[in-house]
Structure formats: C-alpha cells, structure tokens
C-alpha cells in the first residue's frame, strides 16, 4: 500500500500549479470578477494544450492516458485558484465532443439540480437546455441558468467537483493562517489567540480528512467512496471559506478580499452534481448492504 503521491503525481500537480500561477494569478482573477460572464478562450485553449481536458483520454485517441487520481490532482489545483469555466463538463466531454479535448470547444452540462453553468459561453450543451432561464448568480465567476429538465449525474463529475472543493478548502486554510500570522491586535498576532488558532486547526482537520477521502475515491472509483468524498469535501470547502471569512473579520466581509469568492463558488459546487441528501441516503442504504 503506497497511499501517497508518486513522484510523477507530484510533478503533475506542481506543473498545473505553475501553469495556473502564471496564467491565472490574483490580478487576472480580479479582472475576471470585474468582467463577469466572459470566459478567457485563450486560457481555455492553453489548458487544452496542457492536457487538462484530455488527461484521462487514452493516448491512442490523442489523450494523455492518465487516470482519475491525476485528474483529481489537476482539479484540486483548479479549485485552489478559483479557475472559472465549465471545467468538469468539458473534461467529461473530451473524446465525445469535438474540440473539447483540445480546449477549442467549451462544453456545458445540464446538472442534476437543473442548473447549467456557463450556458451562454458554451459551444456545446449536453442535456436539454430548452426553456433555460438566467439567474443572477451569487458567484460572480459562475453564470447560471435554470432549466426545467434535470440530467442524471456522472459519478466522475461528483468526484472532480469534490477535488475542486478540496483545493478551495486548502486555499482557504492557507489564507486564514497567513492572515492570522500577520494581523496584530492587542499587541500580538491574532493567531496567538486560541479562539482564532482553533478555527484554523479545525479548518486543517476538515481539509486533511477530506483529502484522504477524495484521493481514496480517485483510486477505487467506488460509488460509496465517491459519496464519502463529496460529503467531506463539501463540508471542508463551505465551512473552510466561512471560517476563513471569520478569521479575516471586517476585511473578510468586503468585496476586495477573495474569500467571498471561495465561499460562493463552494456553494455553487454543492449543487452542481446532485444533492448531499442523495449521498447521505446512498451511504445509509450501504450500511444495510454488507458487513465491512
């Protein structure tokens, strides 16, 4: 049992991290927020060239030929940086929709809750988008439509969404810790106060537990493992962003600071691939199924 990242997996993760740091840094994120609803097509193609969408497509079909664990690591990095766009939908369409694998096409999916992300920017929509009504999306970086007919959800979409949540939770914890170290009140860094320290510790505990669940689900691709990953990662991302906001105090409540973007995106992701209730019900039913 080597339930740790391999050298190749570390290299892949670092490569994606570098690409995103170079191409989607803090200023680009701010600019994207100021111009909501527009997808950066050049960046999309760059992701395509880097193999982000074709990661799991077999080499014989022009893909990178890697597996779910590698895809999870790449989507975790996307979640860290709040990379916008229908990443999961386009990734799942690679090999099925022309241009998806290379980033030439932007693919949107009708989700299990009847929501569609990035409908107007999409070149191809999978599912029935007739009668779509635009929403004023809570997340400035995820335009949303509502459609009357929902679509069944691919478990891989659930897992990759959980990976994004994991990345977001990791980032929220880092931001909170950075702030708690730097910000001084009452003559000392606020991170020295247990009330703040314990918020940060709980963020890490939720993140690391979610990480084990998400990585294990990537290895086994088992349905119960994927439900587990979703529940743990949703919790880590939503509560992590919430606690990060709290650690930042008044600053965290402003538009300038990126923590609200993490919280809002985390909320969007909790509704992308069905509902937590379904996962809880499946995991409850699983308890009656067989001995451990």
């Amino acid at each position, binding site marked *: 049992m080597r*339930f740790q990242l*391999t050298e190749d997996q570390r290299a892949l993760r670092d490569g994606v991290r570098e690409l995103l740091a170079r191409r989607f840094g803090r200023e680009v994120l701010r600019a994207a927020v100021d111009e909501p609803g527009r997808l950066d097509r050049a960046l999309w193609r760059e992701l395509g060239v880097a193999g982000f969408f074709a990661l799991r497509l077999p080499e014989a079909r022009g893909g990178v030929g890697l597996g779910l664990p590698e895809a999870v690591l790449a989507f975790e990095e996307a979640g860290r940086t709040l990379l916008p766009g229908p990443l999961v939908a386009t990734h799942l369409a690679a090999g099925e929709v022309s241009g998806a694998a290379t980033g030439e096409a932007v693919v949107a999916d009708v989700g299990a809750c009847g929501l569609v992300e990035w409908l107007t920017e999409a070149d191809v929509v999978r599912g029935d988008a007739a009668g779509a009504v635009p929403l004023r999306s809570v997340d400035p970086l995820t335009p949303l439509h509502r459609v009357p007919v929902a679509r069944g959800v691919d478990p891989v979409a659930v897992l990759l969404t959980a990976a994004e949540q994991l990345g977001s939770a990791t980032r929220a914890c880092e931001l909170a810790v950075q702030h708690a*170290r730097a910000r001084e009140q009452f003559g000392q860094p606020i991170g*020295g106060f247990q009330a703040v320290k314990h918020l940060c510790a709980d963020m*890490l505990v939720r993140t690391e537990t979610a990480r084990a*669940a998400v990585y294990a689900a990537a290895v086994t691709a088992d349905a119960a493992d994927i439900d*587990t990953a979703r529940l743990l990662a949703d919790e880590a991302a939503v509560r992590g962003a919430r606690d990060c906001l709290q650690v930042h105090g008044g600053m965290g409540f402003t538009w300038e600071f990126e923590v609200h973007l993490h919280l809002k995106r985390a909320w969007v992701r909790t509704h992308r691939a069905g509902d937590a209730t379904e996962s809880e019900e499946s*995991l409850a039913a*699983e*308890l009656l199924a067989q001995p451990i």
Partner: protein
Amino acid sequence: MDLAYTPEEEEFRARLREWLAKALPTLPPKPSPDDWPGRRAYDLGWQRRLYDAGYADVHWDASPTVRLIFLEETEKAGAPYVGAGFVGLLHAGPTIAAEGTAEQRARWLPPILRGEEVWCQGFSEPDAGSDLAALRTRARRDGDDYVVSGSKIWTSHAEVADWCELLVRTDPQAPKHRGISWLAMPMGAPGITVRPLRTLAGSAEFAEVFLDEVRVPVANRVGDENDGWRVTMVTLSFERGTAFVGEVVACRRVLRELAGEARKNGRWDDPVLRRRLGRLNAEFRALWRLTQWNVSEAERTGGVPGVGGSVFKLRYSHARQELYGAAADVLGPQSLDLDQPWVLDRLSSLSYTIAAGTSQIQRNIVAERILGLPKGR
C-alpha cells in the same frame, strides 16, 4: 497513490485470518468489566497465545502496514483488545526498546511480549493534567536508589500492574521540561498506595496512585537523568499512526449494527436519522482512509510518526461521540437502560475528547506545529 497491499502483506493477512478462526473459539469466557484480576488473566492469556503463534511483537517490529493489517483483522474477527497489556506493549515496551540499555531491554521486554507482566503509566498528576511537564512528584537520589514521593492520577490498570513507567522531577531547580527523568517503578515496592477512581460510566477504570518515599533503583532509569522529557516524547509519539485502527474498524461495525437495529425498531423510516447514519458512514469511511494515509506516510518516512496523529485524534474523538449519540437516538428511551447495548459505550466515549490530550490541546498542537501559528494563550 494506491491502496493495494503487497503479496507478502496479503499472505500475512491470510495466515493471520486462518489462525484467528482457529484460536478464537477456544478462548475462555470474558470476565466482567469490574473483575480486574480476571481481566488481567484474560488479556495476558491472549497475549501469550499471540506470542506462541509468532504475532507478539507485531507492534514493535512489523512495518506500519503489517501493524495496520494485524489490528484490522483482529478487530474484524472479534479478537480481544490489547487491554491490560496496553501500556507495556504500546508505550513502555517501544520506549525501552528505543532508549533502554541492553540489560534493560533483556529484563523488561520479553515478559511484556510473553504476556507475563503488566505496566501502567505514571505520567499525569492531579495538578498537572494537560500541562504534563508541570509534574511535581519528586525523586531524591540516595545511594543507588531514587526516593520518590508524590502522587499520580488517571492510572489505568494500576491495581494489577507489575511496573509503572513513571515520570519524576529529579532537578527541581531546572526549567520545567529539563528536570524530569523516566523510571521503571516496581508496583510492589513499599510506600505505594493505589486508590481506584470510579468513572461516570460506573466502573473503576483508573486509579490514583500515592507514592510515599518509594525506593526505585537508579538502574531503573531509562535515558539520562533529567532527560526524561525527551524520552517521554518518544513514548508519546509511538503508535500514533496506528493507535486507533482497531477502534475505527469497530466503529464501522457498530454503525452497521445500528442501521440493522433501526430497521428492526422502525426508526429507519425517519429520514433525518437515516441521513445522519449515512453521514456517519462517510465520516468513518474517511477516517479509515486517513488511517491508511497516515500509515503510508509513516512507511515513507521510516516509521517516524508525525503530528498528523493530532489531526486524526481530533476528528476521531468527536466522530466517536457522535456515533454513540446516534446510537442513543436509535434506541430511544431504551438508551437510559445501562443493560442495553451501546449505552456504556456512549458514556465511555465522553472520555475521548479529554484523554491523551484534550481536543483543545490537540488544536493548539495542530495550529502551532503544523500551521506554524504563534504560541500564545
């Protein structure tokens, strides 16, 4: 990243399974929880069986993964818990193995492995709980002996122990972490009084130990004089990766039993309760994966456990309390009957966020040592 075991590990698992299937039906009946001599005999008897079958030193010599498999399979088979052997096998033994002299290893290790001697832990004191290094039990040098006076508390198995891994202050003038020494104290020595303490679960799980001019040979000191804090950190770092393996497996079994019970008594129709059990399933599945992750990490770093144990302990101790909280809701008013299953477990689970470092102390450890936040109060 993989979750597959090597052929050697799978072979170990199969061999162990086969042996357990033969050994367990021949076990004597389990003694009652308050029968300490009976529990001692039962637990040591099981250790002797493990010794004869070649599994005794799995906690010390095997790789973290093999230890994981051992704990997983013994729990799944319903084998006895390490019980009275806990301190000897998981704390004192590994500490003596790592820090003791050749004579000390030869004197103390074989009886632990053979299930002949029981150890208890004399670390905590009434005025030094979470602040372990504030301990005040004094040891004065007199010829070839230390003369020890003071008191210890929360000492499990004290009534039936042969030895105590004892922390004493050998230099009262030194800074508090520097004047401590680690001694092996024979529990039969004159001047030792053991007073059992009754827990909120009703049984005497641990005791207070009073020490009045107890003579302990200097030769029983493990590590250098006044270097006991470092030795203690070695003790406390053992088995962090695998400490809770058996318990996580047990919790997963309890969860299935709870679902079965809920289906029998009609509570399963309550979607709120059902979803809660589903979430607990996710919780303990994730804790199992985190265990595998920590064990792989220990394997990668050569078996040295990190502070990651605190992350696990924090999450696990709260999850365990939630599990037995859900059990009470499955049982309904029957949860007030001490003879019903899970009711005593619910009571004892309350200790999990206190014992071995409270959740508050664990959060400080995570925040300061992993996240690098400043020390403070």
